[in-house]
């Protein structure tokens, strides 16, 4: 693996940044260090540092366009970061915007993706495959698991999200909530170290949000490590260890959900919560 390259004189210790917590006794499983992302001239992420410890659930909140998806998508390299480092479960990958180390970089990205699986807002199930085939595709093609083994694992996770009986359906016949649960099961069959959720309930009819949130809460309580972009404050309050409020590509406020949601310190957080959930967003 590469030695970390100092980015510039003041970046010698990329993890020694505000937002990085350093509790004793355990190593973070995800580190994002001084992550910056430009789309052309659009400076979308302006130096984000984030550490997530095993079994933690982290919620990212913020306005539309604040860079939440971009941050999540940089962690599994669906977007190439412009500057910064990503580390997942001990595998550390530097931004390589020019693809200077292309071959090696691609392989590292694949390894990162094996460790960090993503659940999308739009589910993105493969419509031409049955549910079970959606679930075994990754393990067989990517991890080289035997078909029988993959099916056993898939059935296990399908049961876990409460959809064992949909095994042989095509995604087109499922409700939105069921699709998203299948998508979660698909991510789980890869047995990743971290789950990334990008607004997993935003495309759902309000009546279907609950079934997905329930699955996610169960995962959180069982000790899955999750980074969740969401507007479901009830989920954040129930499951998150920390809530990050992001604005303009930077973390503005970080803290336990009780504090950030109920008693935001930063006026920008307060304004966001008031605007998104109404003045009376603070429930009992």
């Amino acid at each position, binding site marked *: 693996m590469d030695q970390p390259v100092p980015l510039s004189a003041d970046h010698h210790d990329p993890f020694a940044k505000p937002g990085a917590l350093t509790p004793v006794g355990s190593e973070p499983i995800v580190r994002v260090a001084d992550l910056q992302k430009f789309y052309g001239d659009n400076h979308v992420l302006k130096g984000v540092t984030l550490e997530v410890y095993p079994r933690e659930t982290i919620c990212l909140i913020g306005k539309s366009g604040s860079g939440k998806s971009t941050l999540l998508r940089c962690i*599994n390299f*669906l977007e190439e970061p412009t500057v910064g480092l990503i580390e997942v479960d001990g595998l550390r990958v530097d931004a390589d915007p020019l693809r200077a180390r292309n071959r090696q970089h691609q392989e590292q990205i*694949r390894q990162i*993706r*094996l460790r960090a*699986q*993503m659940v*999308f807002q*739009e589910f*993105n*199930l*493969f*419509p*031409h495959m049955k549910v079970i085939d959606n679930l075994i*595709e*990754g393990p067989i*093609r*990517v*991890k080289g698991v035997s078909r029988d083994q993959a099916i056993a694992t898939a059935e296990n996770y399908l049961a876990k999200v409460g959809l064992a009986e949909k095994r042989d*359906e*095509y*995604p*087109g*016949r499922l409700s939105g909530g069921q699709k998203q649960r299948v998508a979660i099961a*698909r991510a789980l069959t*890869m047995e990743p170290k971290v789950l990334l959720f990008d607004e997993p309930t935003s495309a759902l009819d309000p009546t279907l949000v609950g079934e997905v949130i329930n699955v996610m809460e169960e995962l959180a309580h069982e000790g899955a490590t999750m980074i969740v972009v969401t507007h479901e404050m009830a989920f954040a309050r129930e499951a998150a260890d920390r809530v990050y409020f992001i604005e303009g590509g930077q973390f503005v406020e970080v803290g336990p959900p009780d504090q950030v949601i109920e008693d935001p310190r930063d006026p920008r957080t307060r304004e966001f919560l008031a605007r998104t959930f109404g003045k009376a967003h603070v429930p009992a």
Partner: protein
Amino acid sequence: MSEAARGGPAGARNEYDLTLARPEDIVRRVAVHRARSRRRFRTIFLLTWLVLVGALVIALAQSGKVDPAFIGKWGPFILGGIPVTLFVSVVSIIFAVVFALFGALGRLSGNPTIYAIATLYVSLVRGTPLIVQIIFVYLALPQFGIVLDPLTSGIFALSFNYGAYLTEIFRAGVEAVPRGQREAAAALGMQERSIMRRVILPQAIRIVTPAIGNDFISMTKDSALVSYVTIEEVFWRANNAGTQTFRNFEALMIAAVVYWVMTIVLSFGQERLEKRMAQSDVRV
């Protein structure tokens, strides 16, 4: 009207009188009314065709310039070309799909050489007449020692030509697969080749199936051009029968009717296939 009498309560004056009718009766009568006007439309349509075509046939028979005995004598010979026409078309469309698959992958390739080759193929083929290509393969290639028998030349030229048009359709089909599909596959850790083969192409092929059907129908007509390389399909036979007997009108008329009926039957089959696909669970 007996239906009206059955559907409405006593006292309804005619089938359009809905006073006092119960809602379920109204629904039933609306359905009956719809079905009846649909049948009426179809009947008039068929009658119009019968009258027009019948009038033409009668006029020709009355003119005394057409020899009805020709049909009995030469009809079977010309019809004998149908299997040849169909064979050439089926084999050519299959090879065209193969050419188009490679063409489209080339047109989507990031490799400039491959992209250039694929683009040259499309440009060259679309920029020259099909008839020139067919005769070129048969008559010009032998100058370089490439001697192909008529059937091979004809099928090669047809499929090479149609492959170029289908290339652009396939490329559009690949591009029509939603972005999220590629992202979901990449996020699983799948490699570019698997993403294409397992996720993108199966969906793209469903998208372009109707276009392949259209091209197949055109192919049955354009296959008449391979008569120039002495393949004894429908048009070759009609042309020969006509010139031998100086009965070109009868011969060409038979050929025209054969092509016409073939396209009607194929279009009908295609319509049913498309309906079946639209109803299937497998949505793209």
